[in-house]
């Protein structure tokens, strides 16, 4: 039995055991869940720098089901187990007050386990099976909170399932074409396949992974799902789960289709590559500004997630060593800072009794300083402030795009500008400004929530200062996908289009950091005024005027919002409505009058006889 098999066995066995233990004692279960996640981290850490394939099961019609490990799988698996572990720890307090916690833990661990299965899959069947388990278990978690989460979960699973079916069509097409599903064997067959077949594969896989990755126009499910999921899971969802789409894209384009073929697939403007790049660009641009519109903290982060997925997409789809490294690194960065942000927002939600509305929060910096710090670091990473990981990954992406495609670079930079705006809105409306009356008794962040925040904040800075740590592994991935190797040092990277060295940038970056810090402190230094003291011409000021953070960027939003209506969301809802309408029409054939039913029978026979006598097709 190899490490991978042990890993999956532990992971999936742990899921069941967690649920069973939960029926006995909740503290036992919590302990077990934490230990289990830690063990998984350790097992994966031990697999560092290993490569290999193993057939683990032949029971599925004798099709060999394969697990394989390489640097790509490892980095994804590591991320999954790491974030998974942190989210479990974060949940300890967060979930205490909820019902059906055993179900929650089991599903959380199941999602993590299935994601590990996906990244370790050595064949498409294994990939698909774990993919589906991930989809439905995610669905159960998104719907967990009930209420608005129901619609969110529904949207997620329908889109996701549609994607899965597309993927299934692709997988089985490959199976019938090449007689194998092993990823290592497909590539050989793929090289001789017709380009139509390749495009078909890219399209169906693109739909499947695009939905999961929330690439425009498949993003419609994400905002609601992220907002309505339990916060510990939002972190996982936004941090790693949608990155399974990234994994899938890399796999499809550079492993299944192959680097060489990918770059030349399709016609000039309508080449697969340029279409993907355009989609990536739109995914940056639109959601960034939609994020600005959000008054719900988690929705804001959700839209931000989509936008960041666009950066990753740009990096991956562009197809150079540097962009690839940037894309993968930005995936890592995003995992870290976005999980961090969801956790801090989750902590606020937890302590304020479930408030996520940015207009109802404010001034929590004194009540929850810890969460504020975490948010600050996270936001810095999100914006790409130097010395954070986000800076390094975005920088790599800009660098690789700037000469090849100035337009895309501009889009990416424009997106960053928007990122600054919504990030400031987030941090200001929660922690700065005035503390609403009813939040007076808010307590500080509990320890179980602090711990993951510390670790993540630390990671943001660590990877920001020492980008060589992750880049070394990423370089191996880049090489294994067929790109040229990059020149990596602990402090940075050297490439033909420019170089990055953190030491050189240190001073300037530090200055900038202090400037931002001061700026924010000034913004926070407001004079607390009794709410009752606010009068305008003797009349009480309406409640929403008390807090000047309300309607942040209002004029700007009034200007741009007409352009930001989510036409694709509307489109999908129209499809759903149409399906409902059509179904309702079709079922009317069952009129309830039995004479009609008999008529159908006679009609069937007569029609058949008529056709046969007229045209004799049979």
């Amino acid at each position: 039995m190899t490490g991978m098999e042990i890993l999956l066995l532990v992971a999936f066995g742990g899921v069941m055991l967690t649920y069973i233990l939960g029926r006995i004692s909740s503290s036992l279960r919590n302990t077990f869940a934490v230990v289990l996640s830690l063990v998984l981290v350790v097992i994966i850490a031990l697999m560092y720098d290993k490569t290999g394939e193993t057939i683990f099961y032949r029971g599925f019609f004798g099709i060999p089901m394969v697990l394989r490990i390489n640097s790509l799988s490892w980095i994804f698996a590591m991320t999954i187990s790491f974030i998974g572990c942190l989210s479990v720890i974060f949940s300890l307090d967060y979930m205490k007050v909820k019902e059906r916690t055993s179900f929650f833990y089991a599903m959380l661990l199941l999602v993590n386990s299935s994601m590990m299965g996906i990244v370790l899959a050595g064949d498409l069947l294994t990939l698909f099976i774990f993919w589906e388990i991930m989809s439905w278990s995610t669905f159960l978690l998104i719907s967990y909170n009930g209420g608005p989460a129901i619609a969110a979960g529904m949207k997620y699973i329908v889109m996701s399932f549609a994607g899965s079916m597309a993927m299934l069509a692709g997988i089985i097409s490959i199976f019938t074409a090449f007689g194998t599903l092993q990823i290592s064997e497909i590539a050989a067959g793929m090289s001789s396949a017709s380009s139509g077949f390749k495009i078909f594969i890219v399209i169906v896989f693109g739909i499947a992974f695009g939905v999961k990755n929330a690439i425009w126009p498949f993003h419609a499910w994400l905002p609601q799902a992220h907002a309505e999921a339990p916060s510990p899971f939002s972190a996982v969802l936004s941090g790693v789960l949608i990155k399974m789409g990234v994994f899938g894209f890399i796999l499809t384009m550079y492993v299944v289709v192959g680097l060489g073929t990918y770059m030349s697939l399709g016609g000039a403007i309508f080449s697969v590559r340029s279409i993907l790049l355009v989609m990536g660009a739109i995914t940056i641009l639109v959601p960034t500004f939609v994020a600005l519109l959000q008054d719900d903290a988690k929705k804001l982060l959700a839209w931000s997630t989509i936008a960041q997925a666009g950066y990753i997409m740009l990096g991956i789809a562009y197809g150079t060593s540097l962009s690839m490294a940037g894309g993968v690194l930005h995936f890592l960065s995003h995992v870290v800072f976005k999980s961090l942000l969801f956790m801090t927002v989750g902590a606020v939600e937890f302590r304020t009794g479930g408030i996520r509305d940015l207009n109802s929060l404010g001034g929590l910096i004194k009540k929850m300083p810890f969460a504020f710090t975490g948010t600050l670091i996270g936001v810095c990473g999100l914006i790409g402030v130097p010395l954070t990981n986000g800076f390094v990954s975005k920088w790599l992406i800009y660098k690789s795009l700037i000469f090849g495609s100035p337009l895309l670079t501009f889009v990416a930079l424009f997106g960053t500008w928007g990122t600054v705006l919504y990030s400031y809105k987030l941090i200001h409306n929660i922690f700065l400004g005035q503390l609403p009356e009813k939040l007076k008794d808010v307590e500080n962040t509990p320890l179980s929530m602090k711990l993951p925040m510390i670790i993540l904040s630390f990671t943001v800075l660590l990877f920001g200062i020492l980008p060589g740590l992750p880049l070394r592994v990423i370089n191996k991935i880049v090489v294994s996908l067929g790109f040229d190797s990059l020149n990596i040092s602990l402090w940075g990277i050297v490439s033909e289009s420019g170089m990055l060295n953190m030491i050189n940038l240190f001073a300037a970056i530090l200055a900038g950091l202090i400037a931002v810090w001061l700026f924010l402190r000034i913004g926070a230094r407001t004079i607390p005024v009794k709410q009752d003291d606010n009068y305008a011409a003797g009349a009480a000021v309406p409640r929403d005027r008390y807090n000047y953070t309300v309607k942040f960027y209002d004029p700007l939003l009034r200007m741009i919002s007409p352009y930001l209506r989510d036409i694709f969301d509307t489109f999908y809802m129209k499809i759903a409505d149409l399906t409902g309408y059509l179904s309702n029409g079709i079922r009317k054939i069952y009129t309830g009058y039995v004479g009609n039913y008999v008529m159908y029978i006679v009609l069937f026979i007569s029609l058949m006889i008529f056709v046969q006598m007229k045209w004799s097709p049979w």
Partner: protein
Amino acid sequence: MKSVFSLILLVVLGAGVVFTLSSIPFGSTSSDVGEYYIDSGRADTGATNIVTSVVVGYRAFDTLGEVTVLFVAAIGLGAILAAGRENEEKKKAEWEPASLVLYTGCRFLFPLILLFGAYVFIHGHLTPGGGFQGGAVIASAFLMVYLGCRKKRISRTWARNTESISGLVFVVTGLTGLAVGGHYFLSNFLPEGTLNTLFSAGIIPIIYIAIGLKVGSELTGVIDDLIEESE
């Protein structure tokens, strides 16, 4: 409109039927199987009524199924009528008693008709009779009693047990064939006797008597259920 449409459909259907029938000319078809039965039915089964030898011999399994169909319908009818009856207040229906002539006549004829029924199924292998026909006659005798003597009801336990035992006789006869006869289900394990005598044709009379009793008691049960319903 609807009937016109239906008619058109049926005309098309009829055209198809006519087309197919043209390959089965009336009155002159003869099947290999049918000829075989006529030629060797007596030797194979010992019954002089070839239809009987088909029904209870060659295709006895069909007949077992057929008995079961009737059984199913009888139980089903009982179940349906019983299910509704539970939650329903009893209301007395007005009904006219039969005249003395009918009342007395039915009583007088009842044993006679039962005898006819018995005659029909006992001679199933010799005459056009058989278990189903005989059973139907027996059941009609009971129907007659209901018509003439409304309140007179058969004992359901009796009917049910008769039904049960005669059904079992059929199956057990078949299983006996499996065990001792030709080692086939429903194969004959009794001597075939002399043609055209009552005690001949092996297991056929046994099965037909069982069927007669079973069909008789089942149909009687059905009639009884329906009569009860009209009360």
